[in-house]
């Protein structure tokens, strides 16, 4: 193991520590209960926050002594970052978030389906669109109509 600090691992450790600090801060604003309780609502949140801060600091020490992740096979031999694919995938997730309340599950799901398939270099986007429609529509019929699970009404769903 090298003795040089590992930047990526240091950032990860700092993130854990910061997350723990946020938990501690949020734990401090939990209202104290007027009811008697042997353990109030704050104790376990404080334990969780302290735990993460402590673990984050220990991870930081580890990162300064060379870190842990740079030696992993998956990290060492990782192919270069695929910006296009990752961007398309994020666009797919965003589309689903923005469209599901208005257009409904079938259309939002299909848009997401196509973008995700595109992100992974699907052979044909027309085919992906058709399959996406079939999958989301089939799932809608199965869950909403056969099982009565409400998975989001929208344009198409309103017509049925």
């Amino acid at each position, binding site marked *: 193991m090298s003795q040089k600090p590992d930047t990526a*691992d240091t950032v990860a450790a700092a993130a854990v520590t910061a997350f*723990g600090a946020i*938990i501690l801060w949020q*734990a401090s604003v*939990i*209202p*104290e*209960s007027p*009811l008697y*309780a*042997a*353990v109030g*609502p704050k104790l*376990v*949140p404080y334990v*969780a*926050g302290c*735990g*993460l801060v402590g*673990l984050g600091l220990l*991870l930081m020490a580890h990162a300064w002594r060379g870190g*842990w*992740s740079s030696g992993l096979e998956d*990290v060492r031999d990782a*192919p*270069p*970052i*695929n910006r296009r*694919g*990752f961007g398309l*995938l994020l666009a797919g*997730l965003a589309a*689903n*978030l923005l469209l*599901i*309340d208005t257009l409904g*599950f079938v259309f*939002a*799901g299909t848009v*997401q*389906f*196509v973008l*995700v*398939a595109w*992100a*992974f*270099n*699907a*052979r044909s986007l027309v085919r*992906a669109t058709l399959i*996406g429609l079939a*999958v*989301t529509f089939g*799932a809608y019929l199965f*869950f909403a109509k056969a*099982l*009565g*699970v*409400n*998975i989001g009404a929208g344009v198409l769903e309103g017509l049925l």
Partner: protein
Amino acid sequence: METLANLGGGFAIALTPINLLWALIGCFLGTAIGVLPGIGPALTIALLLPVTYQISATGAFILFCGTFYGAMYGGSTTSILINTPGESGSIITSLEGNKMARSGRAGPALATAAIGSFIAGTIGTVGISFFGPVVVELALRLGPAEYFSLMVFCFVTVSAVLGSSALRGLTSLFFGIFLGLIGIDLQTGQPRFTFGLPELLDGVNVVLVAVALFAVAETLHLALRWRPGQEEILPVSGRLWLSKDDWKRSIGPWFRGAALGFPFGVMPAGGTEMPTMLSYYTERKLSKRPEEFGTVGAIEGVAGPEAANNAAAAGILVPMLTLGLPTSATAAIMLSAFQSYGIQPGPLLFTQQAELVWALIASLYIANVMLLVLNLPLIGLWVRILKVPTPLLYAGILVFATIGTYGISNSVIDLVLLYVIGFIGMLMKRFDFPVAPVVIGMILGPMAEQAMRQALTISQGDWSTFVTRPVSLVILLLATLALLGPRFYAAYARKG
């Protein structure tokens, strides 16, 4: 022989046509989804949870048990044919199984995995039937203090002992405990970590977290460094049956694997990695043809670990059903399914819901038989599912992830949470933080808090109750030993 009578009653329920149908659907869906690369039993069950909102508890759990065992069977097919194990327990199977497939012996590898899974699954289920009631007897004598200590022990074993790093395991666990704390504190009525969002008052759904960590994180992780190019799926070569020689070489590993796996599953130190690894090294030592290991693929190296994997998975159901303690991500999700029916697993389950428990156990036997029948002749069908192109596979997984979260609550906030936690999961994968402790901490954390409060109410606020009650003290000492023991040993070994 009360157990046999109970089991008979269970079979009477499980063998009704409608419940047989649920078992069949569960086995079929479990295998079909479990076969998909990268999807293990935990995600399979999480994705199928919405299916159960409309059916009776007994039917739902029969469906789950079928799914659970089915996903295990399906997972071994994937490991053998394309070398992408969907869960940690089948990593070892893929070592030798994939080598066998490469040298034209995929058929016997699949056959020994399926028959071994059947034998080990059945031995494991017999173990549940007879060992479960014994654990219940003991568990009924435990008070909240002992329960709390037992949960602490579970925390330590699932995060610090298993896995590659105690620090990272514990970090995952604490993150899970934090997620479990979100929402109204049931005892004092105070909102915790809701950040002013009314949607968070009811807490974060464990299914959402599981789907985020296993499905969304996996998809993000894959897309970030995606390189087009097809996975190589090996053909099912060789006869899909065992030759006389294969039988002779498989029988020993099957039984040894099952004998290794079940106890590991039952102990709160659960997990399937350790028994599968032990079985692999044992078979390698005992094999008459050690030269086949790692070269052309040795059938013993598939038979043993696969049996150990299934027996351990069955064993994990013992602490889940009898103590209400989940020791794997799959068990944690099953436990949350019980909770969504208003049923709390634990020792009382066997008395209050005796019919359900025994029908569930009986359905495990039935599922095993069904899966053996489904798997071997229908292997061609499962291979076709394997051939779903990756772009469509992940696009589909995300559609079902939406159903599993938005479908429950109809809230976009839940979708945002799904993606945010998925993103955190992707980073966790990059930095080698295990994800199972998150799910377990999330379920077990609030239970531990409740047990702690009950114990302190009984002791009138006296914290020493955890160390003055002998059983509780012993469990806490064991937990300390499990946490610190390996470190002291390592330090000692370095000096010595």
